[in-house]
């Protein structure tokens, strides 16, 4: 379909983008890479009066090493994130999960910040940001603020950003020595959305699992941490049995929905099975 008519502006600085968003009232929509927004516009699920294209704002681009963490500009494309030497070295879980997003052509335009701000419950990257304790930096007419990933995703396609704020960057603590990682995605077709996804980072020392961080995709309106699994794995033996026992609680506290692709109880089953797989792979067990 053809989108409903709108005005189009292409600011080149963050303050210009914020000013355009404020000027639009509540009817403006930020276009980062457009790979989620364009389908929404074509289906007429959204009818903004103005589309604010932020894809040519240089300050939203790129990845930098910031000591104990890495900082990724919100407008950095999936293609650039997954091929960034800094991301691959210090946040390989993000690189791995990003490589599973859609297909190569979509990854050339789609952006990390766009995917997080869109907050699709089936999107892969929110669970990664949550599992890695990411921090999202946003800016608006009243200044800038940092929001922990745990406080950012609030509901279906909904975040804690105000209507007049835009996402500027994502900070991820580096995964240091001893950490393994894996993103396990269960999907029906090659470029399909995750029916369930599991982002796992596992730290091992002397044959034990010392810490685990696990984010679940599409098990609730927003990404969720598998907290009970993380607790059970802390100090557990690095064995198939211990991981399997811990993963049995992966669906606890989730709110999986039933849809065309899967019933809720099947999603809960998948969460347990692929959490086990993800942790075993991440832990090299």
């Amino acid at each position, binding site marked *: *379909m*053809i*989108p*409903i*008519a*709108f*005005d*189009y502006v*292409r600011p080149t600085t963050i303050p210009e983008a914020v000013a355009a968003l404020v000027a639009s009232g509540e009817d403006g929509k930020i*276009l980062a890479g*457009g*790979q989620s927004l*364009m*389908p929404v*516009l*074509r289906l007429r699920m959204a009818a903004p009066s103005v*589309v604010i*294209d932020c*894809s040519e704002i240089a300050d939203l681009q790129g990845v930098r090493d910031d000591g104990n963490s890495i900082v990724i500009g919100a407008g950095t494309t999936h*293609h650039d994130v997954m091929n960034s030497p800094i991301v691959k070295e210090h946040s390989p879980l993000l690189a791995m999960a990003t490589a599973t997003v*859609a*297909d*190569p*052509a*979509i990854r*050339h*335009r789609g952006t990390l910040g766009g995917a997080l701000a869109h907050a699709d419950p089936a999107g892969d990257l929110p669970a990664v940001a949550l599992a890695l304790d990411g921090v999202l930096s946003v800016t608006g007419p009243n200044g800038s603020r940092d929001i922990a990933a745990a406080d950012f995703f609030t509901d279906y396609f909904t975040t804690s950003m105000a209507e007049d704020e835009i996402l500027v960057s994502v900070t991820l603590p580096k995964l240091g020595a001893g950490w393994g990682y894996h993103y396990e995605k269960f999907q029906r077709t*090659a*470029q399909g959305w995750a029916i369930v996804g599991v982002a796992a980072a596992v730290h091992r020392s002397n044959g034990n699992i010392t810490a685990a961080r696990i984010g679940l995709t599409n098990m609730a309106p927003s990404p969720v941490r598998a907290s009970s699994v993380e607790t059970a794995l802390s100090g557990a033996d690095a064995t198939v049995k211990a991981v399997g026992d811990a993963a049995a609680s992966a669906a606890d506290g989730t709110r999986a929905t039933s849809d065309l692709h899967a019933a809720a109880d099947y999603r809960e089953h998948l969460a347990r099975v692929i959490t086990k797989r993800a942790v075993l792979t991440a832990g090299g067990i």
Partner: protein
Amino acid sequence: MQVSMNINGEPITADIEARKLLVHFIREDAGLRGTHWGCDTSNCGTCTVWVDGEAVKSCTVLAAQADGHEVRTVEGLEGADGLDPVQQGFIECHGLQCGFCTPGMLMTARWFLDRNPSPTKDEIREAISGQICRCTGYKNIVDAIHWAAEHPRTNEVTA
């Protein structure tokens, strides 16, 4: 709004509505009908073109976003000395049946081979994972792209 871009080396300027998709601009304003408009849901990939040398789905990009940029379509694949090897490969290996998906397959294949000149067949399958052939003729398409990898082009096409 007025947009200007370069398509296959030719400048074009037109007054369009901001909501116009790049695929419609290419077909209607530039008059280049090689790029197909398929699923309109970002899934099938037959509308794939290059913007600044990167393969994109032109049904999921506004023409306004391409303002000031370089676009290359399937009409721009053929070089001075004849067909691009991916085009020849589709002939040699019977890489199309109805042909509807072919422009997107060709543009994706050329983009891919420029970055991975000696791919495995699994890498080819991954590269075209965003392209759907409803005749399901994937085996011959993979063979055709593999044929093209074994017959590198001699002339350079740059977007």
